[in-house]
């Protein structure tokens, strides 16, 4: 008995977890006090030729990130020459008057670097990362690419060929097909539709078209260059000016892009992808034609609705009802407005129920007042994840370049956290009621043999091929 008691006392003394775990293990701990944090200041200057140069300091980074935005994207490609903006941008790294494409690649790798060129609807981005000792080499190479491109016909053929196969391959990708069809509806009649081209149209572009596009849009006053890393503004301005001062200013002769408009009609489309095991569903509409401050309450609203795995959509469709593998929503911001998108992957038998559930959740946003606790949680998530989103140097520098290129200024830089923090519940409710009053069109991609029942239930569904050509319309199961 005594021996047992002795062992018991010893065990309590030496190992508190023996007779039950330590109390602090039972519940999640409270967070530590949150640190006040601000983005580094975004300093910029305009060079004599009109080029905007800015720096985002990150003192201990071993790399520098250079982001050059030319505010000309596919919407600037002429109507009969879709893909021209993309081909022009890609050709800049395929040879200059003095360097071949392979020599450019060698030079980039010799800087421990990587260059990516991305053309979207309203911009072309050169994203260049290199070891910090190579700033001069990087700017020298960039200036050769920007100021002395060769635009060799053989390289045009080669770039066209690889882009052709890239687009051909994407036609097997359900997400790409669904989103492209939806945007074709939303951007119909708008210059952005130029960015939704098929691979066969690329053959129309000639070297002369490329030269003309380059002359017209690759201008310093039409561009923003941001350097991120261990660099200051005076050093950056001096060096950029040294390498790019011969980039000639000439008022870019391009028309201003009209604002995007919401579509009043709700369309439902279908694209057959035989052997697809799941249904890919994309819904959306243009919600605003300008980047007003509505974006902040809508960011909160999106977070409540579908911004993350613990938002309503994912929790309801996947966790509670098991109707979807994933379900999310997002906001795509363009210069001419922003688009709200809902995306889900569902098992084919769950398509009808899943679609209804997404629509029910959307209606709840408009009809029911959002609980304050949910709004606070959404705000907290957005604010807490903001620094994590900006940890990659490229992400931070690119955000700065976009803020400057699209004149978003402090609201989307230093005041971003404050703007989210100050959103009140009634503002979110008001924005939801106003902006979500337009219907969201739907595109479904999947194996048609697996969703016959769904076709019977829908009033009208337009069936497209993978090139976006309307094949026929089905009304209550009847082909028309």
């Amino acid at each position, binding site marked *: 008995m005594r021996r047992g008691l002795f062992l018991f006392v010893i065990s309590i003394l030496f190992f508190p*977890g023996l007779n039950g775990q330590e109390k602090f293990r039972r*519940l999640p*701990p409270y967070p*530590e006090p949150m*640190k006040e944090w601000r983005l580094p200041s975004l300093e910029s200057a305009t060079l004599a030729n009109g080029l905007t140069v800015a720096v985002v300091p990150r003192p201990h980074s071993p790399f520098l990130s250079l982001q050059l935005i030319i505010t000309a994207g596919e919407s600037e490609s002429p109507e009969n020459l879709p893909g021209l903006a993309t081909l022009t941008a890609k050709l800049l790294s395929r040879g200059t008057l003095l360097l071949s494409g*392979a020599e450019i690649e060698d030079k980039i790798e010799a800087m421990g670097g990587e260059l990516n060129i991305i053309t979207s609807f309203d911009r072309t981005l050169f994203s260049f990362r290199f070891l910090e000792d190579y700033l001069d080499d990087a700017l020298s190479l960039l200036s050769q690419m920007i100021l002395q491109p060769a635009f060799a016909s053989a390289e045009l053929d080669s770039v066209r060929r690889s882009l052709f196969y890239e687009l051909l391959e994407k036609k097997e990708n359900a997400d790409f097909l669904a989103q492209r069809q939806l945007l074709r509806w939303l951007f119909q009649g708008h210059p952005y539709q130029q960015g939704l081209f098929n691979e066969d149209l690329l053959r129309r572009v000639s070297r002369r078209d490329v030269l003309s596009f380059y002359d017209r849009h690759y201008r310093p006053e039409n561009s923003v260059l941001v350097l991120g890393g261990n660099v200051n503004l005076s050093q950056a301005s001096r060096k950029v000016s040294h390498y790019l001062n011969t980039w000639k200013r000439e008022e870019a002769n391009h028309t201003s892009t009209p604002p995007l408009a919401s579509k009043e009609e709700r369309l439902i489309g279908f694209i057959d992808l035989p052997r697809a095991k799941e249904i890919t569903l994309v819904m959306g509409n243009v919600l605003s034609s300008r980047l007003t401050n509505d974006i902040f309450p809508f960011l909160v609203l999106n977070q409540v609705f579908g911004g993350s795995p613990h938002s309503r959509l994912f929790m309801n469709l996947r966790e509670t009802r098991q109707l979807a593998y994933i379900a999310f929503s997002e906001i795509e911001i363009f210069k001419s407005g922003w688009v709200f998108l809902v995306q889900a992957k569902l098992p084919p038998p769950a398509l009808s129920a899943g679609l209804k559930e997404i629509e029910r959740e959307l209606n709840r946003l408009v009809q029911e007042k959002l609980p304050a606790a949910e709004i606070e949680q959404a705000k907290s998530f957005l604010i807490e*994840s903001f620094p*994590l989103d*900006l940890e990659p140097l490229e992400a931070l520098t690119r955000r700065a370049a976009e803020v400057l290129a699209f004149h978003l200024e402090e609201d989307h830089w230093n005041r971003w956290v404050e703007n989210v923090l100050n959103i009140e519940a009634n503002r979110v409710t008001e924005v939801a009621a106003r902006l979500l009053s337009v219907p969201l069109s739907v595109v479904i991609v999947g194996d048609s043999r697996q969703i016959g029942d769904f076709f019977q239930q829908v009033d009208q569904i337009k069936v497209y091929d993978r090139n976006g050509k309307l094949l026929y319309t089905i009304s209550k199961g009847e082909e028309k």
Partner: protein
Amino acid sequence: MFSFFPRKDMIFYCPMKGSCHSKQPGLWLALFLLVCFSWLQAQTEEKSVASPFPFVYYQLKNGLGVILSEDDTLPIVSIAIAYGVGSLREKPGQAGLAYLLENLMFQGSLNVGPMQHFSYISRVGGRSNAQLSENLTLFFQSVPSHQLPLVLWLESDRMMSLVISEDHLESSKMTVLDEIRRRRFNEPFLDSFLLFDQMIYPDFSRQHPVTGYEEDIQGLRAEEVREFYRTYYVPSNAVLCLVGDFNRKRAKELIEKYFESIPGGKEVPPLAELPSGFKGPLSRVSVDPLASAPAVHLAYRLTSPNSADYPIFKIIDYLLTKGKSSWLVRRLLQREKIAVRFEGGLETRLGVTWLRLFIVANNEVMVERCLRAVEAEISRLKTALVPEEELGLAKTKYLADLRLRFTSTLDRAIFLAENYFSLSSLEEIAQIIEKPLKTQASDIVGLANRYFIDDNRAILKVRIK
């Protein structure tokens, strides 16, 4: 929605639980001695390392390695916990056990429900994931820095009291088997990679896939999994790496609070270095029903990673396979355009390193041309000094890739965790990672002639159906 309390039907494995219910006095005595021994053990002294980035490291009384690296650039922290165990520790008939356990680590522990680990992290804006290799299982997350206690609470709970119930086991089996089947039916060339593994690694430990075999996973019993967890998921076989914006004193307090009372576990014996057992040259042909183009695997057996020659092979790897300017990418994909896909690099499993290449060719005829092209490039290494400019380029690429691993707090945490298990002392880290930069052109000629020989070569040609 989330319960903070365990379900009543859960069986959790707590290292102390078996002892609590035991009626055997011998066990009590052993426990008593173990507790006394733990008490007498002390935290090891903190050591500082300045390069390649500053960090300190020490061990808790229970043997848990702790590495702390402060960086207040952003208000975030990344935490990686690595256990020194992977598929190499599995026995025949158990292939997939390490993978299954990695999945079970998200199925809940005494105070954290199934999948709540992800939810807790995601709710505070963080990200979490895990990765498994032949010799390491890593769990990692990045969160806002004020949420450090949450991560330590979550990680300590599953280190101390993982729930390994029949329900959880079945659920994990379903998940990992789904994943294996999905990959098998969708990934062209996957079977050929597994077959090539069997060719170059004749022994079970090295050759079986990290994700295991379906039949083995189906047959795994809860007790086997518990035993694996009890043996390897213990503080003395683990390291906690914390990188980011934290107060060192406070972080140490929190780590001590959550981890120090977890029993250290028995010492895990080091893996015995098996001889390679490979006898070359070896050449085979297989057919892949999912492939749309023919391909070829080619590999050369090299030296052990502990040998003085190994750092030179790092540079040879960069010369031959890394980046658009590498010799094989340039020749196969750009100059001769005889291949549509190329990948390659060094691979080490239990003391044996191979240079592995995988080439998808334009057609059957081009497979042979690809092999000849590889041979020609390797012959360049054997017969002439690599020009200084090209050697410099390879070294810069190596350096850039290395520094790329230090750019995010999470990358640094993972880098430290991996090196904790692979180096005898973390103080050597800067010296070891910089060794390849000392490579001379003359070193390469000698090694190429010694290792790139027929006896060290294996080839697997993959035909389309």
